[in-house]
């Protein structure tokens, strides 16, 4: 097991290296000049050129890459072109809202989707099953921002029970923190509820047809015990896989939700940085996302051994 973990962690190094080179080149080859953005609308060409030199963008591409990669190996992400702050400082400021939003979303999605999927499988072909599957189709089909605006209109503007936007850090009080996460988490969770519920239903349905389930029933076990102890446990591997993929996808999914609910997280930072062509920030955030993606996948693989003793690394 330890050898497997070590191998997987070592394998992340070339992956991250490739991501670093790809992102670096992609940013330099796409249109857009951070110097022109910084200089403002009324700046002349000379002013833009001076800023470009100051930022080191006038140097050859290879020199720029060597400088950036050298700093990166020392753990230095560099300084944002715009904020006069280090990229590490910016990420530290923005990571809490994204982690909180992602955590609540996935918890909410799992708590709702898994029971829904199990019930839909158990009540196969009933109106409950069709209802759950109908909701899944709707959850997949409606864009996140539409759900967001709808929830804001109903809960924040019409009923006034929850805030429209913003984020409060947990240090500012637990209720203000939770209050501002309810609508964004619910918005973002819809698509994951749809996804996880469908997979849970399919997996449980497949297991329910197995011989050992019939045996369990023959032994006189209640439906609840059969479902929870025998069916769900054996259906868990694909469900955990899809939850894991969901966590990884959340990294990208938070971008729209953070914009609609004005949550100053990593998603917003990425969008701001891309629009402003803030190369050091974009590079660091994408590398961070890559690390998170690799680690989540590793955790999913490791969780299989807990759920299915036959799986060994």
């Amino acid at each position, binding site marked *: 097991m330890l050898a497997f973990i070590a191998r997987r962690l070592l394998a992340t190094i070339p992956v991250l290296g490739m991501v670093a080179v790809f992102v670096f080149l992609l940013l330099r080859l796409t249109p857009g*000049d951070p110097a022109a953005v910084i200089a403002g609308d009324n700046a002349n060409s000379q002013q833009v050129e001076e800023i470009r030199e100051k930022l080191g963008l006038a140097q050859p591409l290879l020199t720029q890459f060597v400088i950036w990669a050298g700093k990166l190996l020392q753990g230095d992400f560099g300084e944002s072109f*715009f904020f006069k702050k280090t990229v590490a400082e910016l990420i530290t*400021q*923005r990571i809490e809202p994204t982690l909180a939003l992602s955590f609540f979303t996935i918890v909410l999605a799992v708590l709702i989707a898994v029971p829904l999927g199990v019930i839909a499988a158990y009540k196969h072909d009933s109106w409950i099953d069709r209802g759950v599957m109908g909701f899944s189709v709707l959850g997949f089909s409606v864009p996140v921002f539409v759900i967001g605006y709808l929830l804001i209109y109903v809960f924040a503007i019409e*009923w006034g029970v929850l805030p*429209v936007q913003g984020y409060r850090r947990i240090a500012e009080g637990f209720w203000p923190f939770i209050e501002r996460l309810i609508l964004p988490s619910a918005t973002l969770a819809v698509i994951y509820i749809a996804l996880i519920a469908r997979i849970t239903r399919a997996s449980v349905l497949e297991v329910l047809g197995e011989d050992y389930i019939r045996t369990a029933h023959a032994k006189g076990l209640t439906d609840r015990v059969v479902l929870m102890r025998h069916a769900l446990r054996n259906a868990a591997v694909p469900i955990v896989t899809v939850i894991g993929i969901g966590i990884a996808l959340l990294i990208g999914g938070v971008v729209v939700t953070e914009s*609609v609910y004005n949550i*100053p997280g990593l998603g*917003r930072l990425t969008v701001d940085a891309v629009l402003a062509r803030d190369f050091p920030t974009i590079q660091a955030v994408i590398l961070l996302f890559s690390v998170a993606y690799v680690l989540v996948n590793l955790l999913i693989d490791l969780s299989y051994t807990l759920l299915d003793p036959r799986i060994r690394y």
Partner: protein
Amino acid sequence: MKLDTLLKLAAAAAMATPLAFAAPPAAAQSNTVRAVMHSDLKILDPIWTTAYIVRNHGYMNYDTLFSMDEKLNVKPQMVEKFEISGNNLTYTFTLRDGLTWHDGKPVTSEDCIASIKRWGARDSMGQKLMTFTQELVAVDAKTFRLVLKEPYGLVLQSLGKPSSNVPFMMPKRVAETNPMEQISDFTGSGPFMFKRDEWKPGEKTVYVRNPNYKPRNEPASGLSGGKVAKVDRVEWLAIPDHQTAVNALLASEIDYIEAPPHDLLPVLKKDRNVALVDYNPLGNQYTFRFNWTHPPFNNEKVRRAVITAFNQEDFLKAVIGDADYYKTCKAMFICGSPLESNKGMDGLLESKVDNAKALLKEAGYDGTPVVLMQSTDLIVLTNLAPVAADLMRKAGLNVDMQSMDWQTLVSRRTKKDLPNAGGWNAFLTSWVAADILNPVMAGFLNSGCDKAMFGWPCDEQMEKLRDQFSRETDAAKQKALAEAVQERAMQIGTHIHLGQWYQPIAVRKGVIEGIPTAPAPVFWNITKKGN
């Protein structure tokens, strides 16, 4: 029990938990204005960049020697009195008593001299002033002298320049920062103080009232007069999504939106708790810019054909829509300003398509495509390019409209490459009226070839006229020269002005009052009732 009742009960129950009584942030305890500005504040040096959000930050944190009032007259601000020598060569300025920096130290002549020099190295009007300046010397701690090499008619207009770059005063130690580098010490002397420790880019910018600020005794007018900070704290919240900002205002979570998009104004107008305030009567001006370096716009007749083919109403209707918020105006230096004139505009901007076609024929236009850049992410610009493309096509031009985000356009417009190799032929933008009130301020009139702004017009006669304007001290003669500049601009086609539009501020009605009428959104003299 209805769902809303249940939710309200649940919310009330949650509020009753001890955790809910955790200490509220400082903002909630004081008289705080929560505002959403047109952009997030990322750069803090108003001399280093021309971005309007940084100019607005400057007005919060810094003060100016002179300021422009509502009638566009330049009035002393930090300056108590000034004298101009009989030969118009020496200007002596005396600072007001009691001016201090936010760190408590007094504002001195040396501070102001260093600030003028740094601004003079960056700003186009400042650079022009510096070319006429022989010396800037401190007479004593409160008095300094500007000595010119030859008379210059725009000394006070330059020092009282209302928009980017505004000559904000900074302590000498700060103003001595290399003009090509950003400052890192944000000590100012303005009516509010920037809170560096609470600044979170992408989240919020915080200012608190400067308790030691000494406002002038005169009533406030435009950007001049008594600047009284009547609220304890101003927070600029970064809400990039317009719909979210509007929702937040409707739910009273914020107090102020600087630039609500025009298509959402009907929603705001309908709400009885929201007021729309027209704070900037000069407004903004849409502009079409030619690139003189490549065909077909390297040909004066083709440029004139476009001017003849265009009309302002089509552009304004397509973007702003509501006639309450736009005005056609053939005066290049803004309707309502002292230099307003229609000279040289007869028969132009009236969509005379046949005349335009005839001009193209005379020019020998061969169908060379016009690469027109369209910005798609700024609502106030998006619809301009399709209208321009349509009008140009009607005149017979072959238009290749290319869509991109604004920052890509900003980068691309600096390139002189061929249009089919990453360059361009034309784009549209908008100017804050306060930036284009005369021929020296208006950057697109600079016709100094390579030294001109992107588009690079090249015309000796235009440069002579602009130079004459800058040297002229008589107002009537200045106006005649401005008219000559306008006439020349239309003849050679530096750019096309496409009408004025206005951006109201949306605020909570009965809560936020006293918004100053000024060419920039400022927060002094604003009051807030309740929370």
